């Protein structure tokens, strides 16, 4: 008998999937890399879309009336910018969800590489542009709002605002991007190694 057939016999001993795994449990189990990447984009998109709606309807919701046009322009620009960013996030979510998990590895790898290249380009352009535009819009909004405050209050508000924006961009934002990059490079690295093993003989 072929010694490999002995191994096959051992391997093919019947095995049952764990009884405890029901469908509801399966649906709730841990998310994978790609799911985590997609979920991050989905929740960011939803959060930003809700913010945009809130900003656009701020006057109607609160009944507050401003005296300067720049305040309204700033407010609507903020709504537009966050809304635009929500569209970007939801587009990324859609792209991630469209990745065909059942594609052959070479095709699967190519899809991830295309996504990664696109994402890197987007981060390079989209990140700074979003940050600058949003702060520009805030600047317009602050002309009237901060103008009503005494000098000390204005200074404190500006310091807090600037500090938070810098922290959000350079610490929180960069950290999130690093995490995302790590996930993407791990996925691509694994698939590349696999591809090399297949073509290396």
């Amino acid at each position, binding site marked *: 008998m072929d010694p490999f057939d002995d191994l096959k016999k051992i391997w093919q001993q019947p*095995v049952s999937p764990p009884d405890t795994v029901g*469908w509801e449990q399966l649906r709730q189990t841990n998310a994978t890399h790609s799911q985590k990447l997609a979920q991050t984009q989905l929740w960011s998109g939803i959060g930003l879309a809700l913010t945009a709606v809130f900003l656009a309807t701020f006057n109607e919701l609160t009944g507050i009336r401003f005296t300067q046009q720049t305040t309204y322009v700033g407010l609507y620009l903020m709504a537009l910018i966050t809304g635009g960013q929500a569209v970007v996030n939801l587009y990324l979510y859609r792209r991630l969800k469209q990745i065909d998990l059942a594609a052959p590895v070479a095709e*699967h790898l190519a899809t991830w590489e295309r996504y990664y290249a696109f994402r890197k380009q987007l981060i390079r352009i989209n990140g700074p542009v979003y940050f600058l535009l949003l702060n520009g819009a805030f600047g317009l909004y602050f002309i009237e709002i901060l103008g009503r405050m005494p000098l000390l209050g204005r200074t404190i508000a500006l310091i807090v605002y600037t500090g938070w924006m810098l922290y959000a961009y350079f610490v929180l934002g960069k950290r999130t991007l690093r995490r995302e990059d790590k996930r993407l490079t791990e996925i691509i690295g694994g698939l590349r190694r696999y591809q090399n093993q297949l073509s290396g003989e």
Partner: protein
Amino acid sequence: MNASQSIPPFEELYTRFAPRILKLCLGYTGEYAQAQDLMQETFIKAWQHLPAFRGNAEVSTWLYRIAVNTCLNHLRTAKRQVAEPLLEQHMATLADDTGEPDEAVRRLYGCVSQLPETDRLIISLVLDDVPYSEIAQIVGVSEGNLRVKIHRIKQQLVTLFHQHGPL
């Protein structure tokens, strides 16, 4: 082929393929806890992507491809943990009427997990009697190339297995 005619209900897919997918994942990781996670992830993804399955491949090929991609996308930084109680649980699910000692099964999974990643996946499919044409489609190589690889991996696995002594 009409997809609606070719796809069995999901619960049936799970019952039919979960044990095979579990073995594939176990061959890949060599650890039961991780293999179980990967199997579950495979079926979650399959469940989510079932509407996109157009029936242009065998449902088994489709599922195996998802499993292979899931294994390869697996979080490599995750702590590799030997979950002995779970492994024992797995051993308990093996029917004992074949007369094979648990030690042999354990040793076989251990030997498979020592092979390079691609070889692990290929040999797990071979051990499960998946046709070569289907394996070629799953891993994305030509059948001729695959046969050469399989011949080599089989020899390597037999050698590794017997290095640990007779059964």
